[in-house]
């Protein structure tokens, strides 16, 4: 049969963002794949070298569009680690809550995308509509809908608004009740199961070597989570479980995410229950003149797609020497995709892309 070269993207409804996959197909079967990135490259790392530490804080969240808080948190913790700035206890609790809210909204977005890529168009209408209620809480808390600019070096910018706790707990109840509908519509749907089980398989023995992280890794049965391996913020004071499913296919990844969704709800409830009173940030000395001692650091956290790391080098001046962002999609979207796409069917490409949590802006920064 004739081999055809097919360019998927950058402009295509099935692509998770502005990226392009070059495919060699034989009929419906993919022989070779190559990812092309760079359509969203803004040179963040260069821009941050030109800005002072506090000036870099508003731009880091743009690195990953669907989950900006992860970047804010990582950046803030990296700066705190380098400079020795202390964070008040309450701020840590709020930060953890923000991270879990980010995880929830990211999973809701993912559910919409994942089922939408299989033609289940009711799901995006529901989940993205429900995600908006989370964004309302975000807006109330942080002042921004998508880019929150809330977690900054030294703590968080503003305290919880009055009555936030009640509204947040109500929302958690609502999301929990909605999960039953999602399950019926998506996770137990025959079409979904048929297409998800056995597709996009990552072998368990290769997963670590290929650099797989996060829910995708846990979907192959390997239990690693930065929240447990290296507890940051206040994760060591919370009770939660980290699920694993054997299989390594789209369906086990979906189940991992579903389980984690429920865990996040439980974490937020715990936080709302136990959050201590106190100050919310330690002010940095002077936004224009603040200098950070020379040093290197690598901080990481568990985003909804896996280990999200920041490597940072400071040279003792007001500005960063170098920052390098390691998004999970960098590995998932390029080298992993090139490994697992060959052999699958053409129609599964966007499904696999969604299940890996590929997010172009963080690949090219």
């Amino acid at each position, binding site marked *: 049969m004739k081999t055809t070269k097919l360019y998927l993207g950058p402009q295509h409804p099935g692509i998770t963002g502005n990226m392009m996959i070059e495919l060699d197909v034989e009929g419906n079967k993919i022989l070779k794949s190559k990812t092309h990135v760079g*359509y*969203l490259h803004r040179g963040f790392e*260069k821009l941050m070298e030109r800005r002072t530490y506090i000036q870099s804080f508003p*731009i880091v969240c743009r690195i990953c569009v669907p989950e900006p808080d992860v970047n804010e948190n990582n950046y803030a913790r990296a700066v705190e680690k380098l400079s020795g700035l202390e964070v008040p206890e309450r701020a840590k609790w709020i930060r953890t809550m923000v991270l879990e809210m980010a995880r929830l909204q990211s999973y809701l977005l993912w559910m919409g995308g994942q089922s939408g890529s299989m033609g289940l168009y009711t799901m995006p*209408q529901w989940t*993205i509509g429900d995600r908006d209620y989370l964004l309302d809480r975000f807006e109330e808390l942080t002042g921004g*809908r998508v880019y929150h600019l809330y977690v900054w070096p030294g703590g968080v910018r503003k305290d919880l608004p009055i009555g936030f706790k009640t509204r947040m707990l109500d929302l958690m109840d609502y999301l929990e009740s909605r999960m039953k509908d999602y399950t019926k519509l998506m996770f137990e749907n025959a079409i979904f199961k048929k297409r998800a089980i056995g597709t996009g398989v990552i072998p368990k023995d290769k997963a670590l070597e290929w650099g797989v992280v996060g829910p995708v890794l846990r979907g192959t049965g390997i239990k690693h989570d930065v929240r447990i391996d290296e507890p940051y913020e206040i994760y060591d004071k919370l009770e939660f479980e980290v699920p694993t499913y054997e299989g390594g296919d789209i369906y086990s990844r979906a189940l991992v995410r579903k389980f984690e969704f429920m865990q996040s709800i439980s974490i937020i409830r715990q936080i709302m229950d136990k959050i201590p009173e106190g100050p919310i940030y330690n002010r940095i000395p002077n936004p224009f003149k603040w200098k950070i001692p020379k040093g290197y650091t690598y901080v990481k956290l568990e985003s909804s797609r896996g280990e999200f790391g920041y490597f940072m080098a400071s040279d003792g001046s007001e500005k960063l020497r170098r920052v390098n962002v390691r998004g999970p999609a960098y590995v998932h979207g390029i080298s992993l995709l090139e490994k697992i796409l060959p052999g699958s069917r053409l129609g599964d490409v966007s499904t696999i892309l969604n299940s890996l949590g590929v997010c172009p*802006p963080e690949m090219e920064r």
Partner: protein
Amino acid sequence: MDDLKRPTLDSDFTCDMAFNKITKWAQKNSLWLLAYGTGCGAIELSPTMTSRYDWSRLGIRGSATPRQADLLLITGYLSTKTLKRVIRSYEQMQDPKYVIGFGSCTINGGMYYDSYNTIKQLDLYIPVDVYINGCMPRPEAVLSGLAYLKDKIGDKKADGWIKYKQNFEWYRENQKKILKSFNGDNMPDKYNW
């Protein structure tokens, strides 16, 4: 920008007024947009198109190919690499076609003003009919931008595509300044609609 020719929209329509009115009405109430999320703004499009804000009630829906699309949303910054694809997509779209620029980045570079890889002024490369304030614009702002565009189409003022046609050399020249490998093979020097 001042050296551009101002197009006269009516001259393009030889049909009578009634037909003219009907086409305008039809055009403004069925805007199909090209599913091309070029920047961060794409993240606010999914809420806008789904149940909460629901832009289908304004007659808007996505289309997979540029040939069927009327509307191109430039959702934020454009890297030079994307710009090439955007121009390509824009030129493939059928007349009449409209462009909406989202947020600061399309106006004067936005927060990437000192970046080496993003363009600063979108209207140097393709004509923009409407700009929406924000970084990113909220869904409400997006909807108001779309409503503004609809009004503009109704008033026959959304003439960016004619401007592009009439000042094609000017736009091409600007585009070539940025896109170094912009040769005759993949980008004809003539407008090929």
